């Protein structure tokens, strides 16, 4: 675990913050290091039958069973098979109001970088391929852009849509 890190996700990525950048679907994605516990190599992933593709696996982090999620699904990105470079980022998030640990898949992890509030931009209203409500902001580092996903929105949408499924079955 990263020592002394705030276990809650920062309210907004607006201020100066450190981000870890990774590749997903050929695009650059930034995740605040404040919620990052560790980066691990994918070991044995257990398939969860009948689960959605977004969270279709489970893995073990030091005795804890952690769900593996794939942000490429909600962000509607191209899916490619895992490679040598594939990693899992273990994150502290809030699910259903309680702190939880989840893993997110990364095609490749690049670097930890300082991002100042000034280099964050609003999501453009046109021309964006990904669902806007899942993107918190666009960051810029030099001449490269990266997307900062709104993890709260992504997870809570998944939780509420799965509840809707239950209601149908009940």
């Amino acid at each position, binding site marked *: 675990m990263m020592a002394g890190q705030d276990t809650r996700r920062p309210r907004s990525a607006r201020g100066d913050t450190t981000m870890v950048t990774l590749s997903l679907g050929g695009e650059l994605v930034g995740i605040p290091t404040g919620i990052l516990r560790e980066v691990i190599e994918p*070991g*044995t992933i*257990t*398939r*969860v*039958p*009948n*689960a959605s593709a977004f*969270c279709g696996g*489970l*893995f*073990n982090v030091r*005795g*804890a*069973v*952690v*769900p593996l*999620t794939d942000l490429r699904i909600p962000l509607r990105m191209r899916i490619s098979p895992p490679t040598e470079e594939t990693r899992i980022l273990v994150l502290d998030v809030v*699910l*259903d109001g*309680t702190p*939880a640990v*989840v893993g997110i898949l990364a095609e490749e992890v690049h670097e930890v970088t300082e991002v100042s509030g000034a280099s964050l931009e609003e999501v453009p209203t046109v021309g964006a391929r990904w669902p806007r409500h899942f993107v918190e902001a666009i960051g810029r580092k030099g001449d490269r852009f990266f997307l900062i996903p709104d993890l709260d929105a992504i*997870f809570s949408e*998944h*939780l509420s849509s*799965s*509840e809707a*499924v*239950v209601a149908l079955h009940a």
Partner: protein
Amino acid sequence: MSNDADDLFLIEARQLAESLEAGLLDMKSRPEDRTLVDSVFRDLHTLKGSGAMFGHTALATFLHDFETAFDAVREGRFAVTAALIDLGLRACDHAVTLLEGGEAAPGQALLAELTALISGGDAPAAAPAEEGAAPEEGAGSGDWQMAFRLAADCLVLGARPQVLLDELRALGATDLNPDFDALPTLIDLEPDRLYIGWRLRLPGHVTEAEIREVFLFNEEDLRLELTREPAGPPPEVEAATAPPAAGPVAMAAAPTPPAAPPRERTMMRVPAERLDEMMNRVGELVIAEARLAELVARTGDAQLVAVAEEIQRLATGMRETTMSIRMTPIDSITSRFRRLIHDLNGALGKSILFEVEGEETELDKTVIELLADPLMHLIRNSADHGLELPEVRRAAGKPEAGTIRLSARYSGAEVVITLADDGRGLDVGRIRARAEERGLVAPEAELDEQATLALILQPGFSTAETVTELSGRGVGMDVVKRTVEQLRGTIEVESVPGQGTRIHMRLPLTLAIIDGLLVEIAGERYTIPLAAVEHIIELPEEHAKRGDGSRFLNIRDQLVPFLRMRELLGSEGPPAPFQKVVVATAGELRVGLTVDRIIGSSQTVIKQLSPLHSTLKTFSGATVLGDGSVALILDVPQLVAFGQIRDSMEAA
């Protein structure tokens, strides 16, 4: 340090108050039982004593007066009545309020009521005896000669001889003299040791038990010599261990079993979170042990194997002990329900009997604690909405007093808790109408009776025409359902109009570690709770083909539905040539689960699934295997239910 002691006092005081409450409630059904009176008195006394020791003067004063008054009951000068018990319960509540720093004033009114009750009774007009006033009364036997000496290190442990002496004086001690025989020379004297003993004389009417009670907290290494002077008219010879003579009691005819010696077994109170921590550690130990076993099996080194087996044996023992520490009998919460019923009896104008069956049934403490509130709610509901008024019941040919029965029993790896009442039952039509009105169900939807009854568990459902004082507070039925589901249990409503309602809750025995049967399906491993496994058979040849449409197996002349797990789990590849069927049970129902291979049984530390996976009803959790990978735990009750539903759908 002193804070710790204070905390401990508060915990102990609450438990005493609970025990006191339970004793009073038991007295209701067995007013003649001397041991109950004694136990209530003892609780009062202990609570008073430790209250004084920890500076809760308001509490000590209140209880002292109450104890004095209650003494009349113990001496048989006043019979146990419903009014007395009621007063006792209210006093108990007041004591708890005082513990929590509440107002002392209401205590006076209670005491006045008690005094009035006692003196107004058919007892000899003696006002409640003030301390010291008693000696003249019943000097039937000779006075006591007593010498005592406390443990030398008792001062360090917090004993206060002064308090003991005061209590003895309250019992009427005279000729109180210190005994300096053991006093060492100044050079050997250690300031924190107690070298002094005391000799004194106590009036003959004081019982030995009363004397010993004074030393309740100082029994360790206590040296107590107690002899009766043969002066009294009936020369009684009392063995040191003899129970107190029954005394001049009106109910002397009733058999009076000797009071159990207080605190025979050494008990220790431990903060619950330490138990949780311990359970977590044991969980980790079990996982590590599984890894070790797997590694050792690979090396095949006989010596290592022996050590690994030894560690496995120890880990299993450790797990069982830890779990048994956490197991708590249901009766740890039933006294609350008794109290609730007692209060409801007065408030509702109904006469309610409360019966408990299987109080000794044990469940994990977390389960018990989380269950208390939902059960309270269900009982309140039954009393409020389920049971009819006495006139109505009489008209229906039922006994005027309604009965609410709580029963608990083991069923495989589960405990079934049933709350039943013999009231009017649920009105299926009204439930349906209300559910439609609330938009919980579409008017055209077809529901059978079971499904309709289950609607009362939905959020936003309430059939009470008027919100009464009782049903208005606390949790709703949907919270009951959610709590039970959180505990990986199921809830079911059953009702017969005019005869009553039953609510069954099935709960797992423990939340932490189970014995699991590890199986392989299409190269993936799954765990089935071993307690739910009835037997394992080979899948008969004629069913082995994938396209085979049959859904039943004939097992010992019984048709058992079976689920092709490969299909259910969306597994790939062709099935193994010799498939096995694991026959699992939930309650009275069974289901067969086809698997490719049985790997073996193993201790399974249950890890809850993430909320992201909470909709997957096939699995009740996950566990970490010896090689560090994760296996899902199959949820047998859900699979059984699924087997049933599918069959009824196909039959339709």
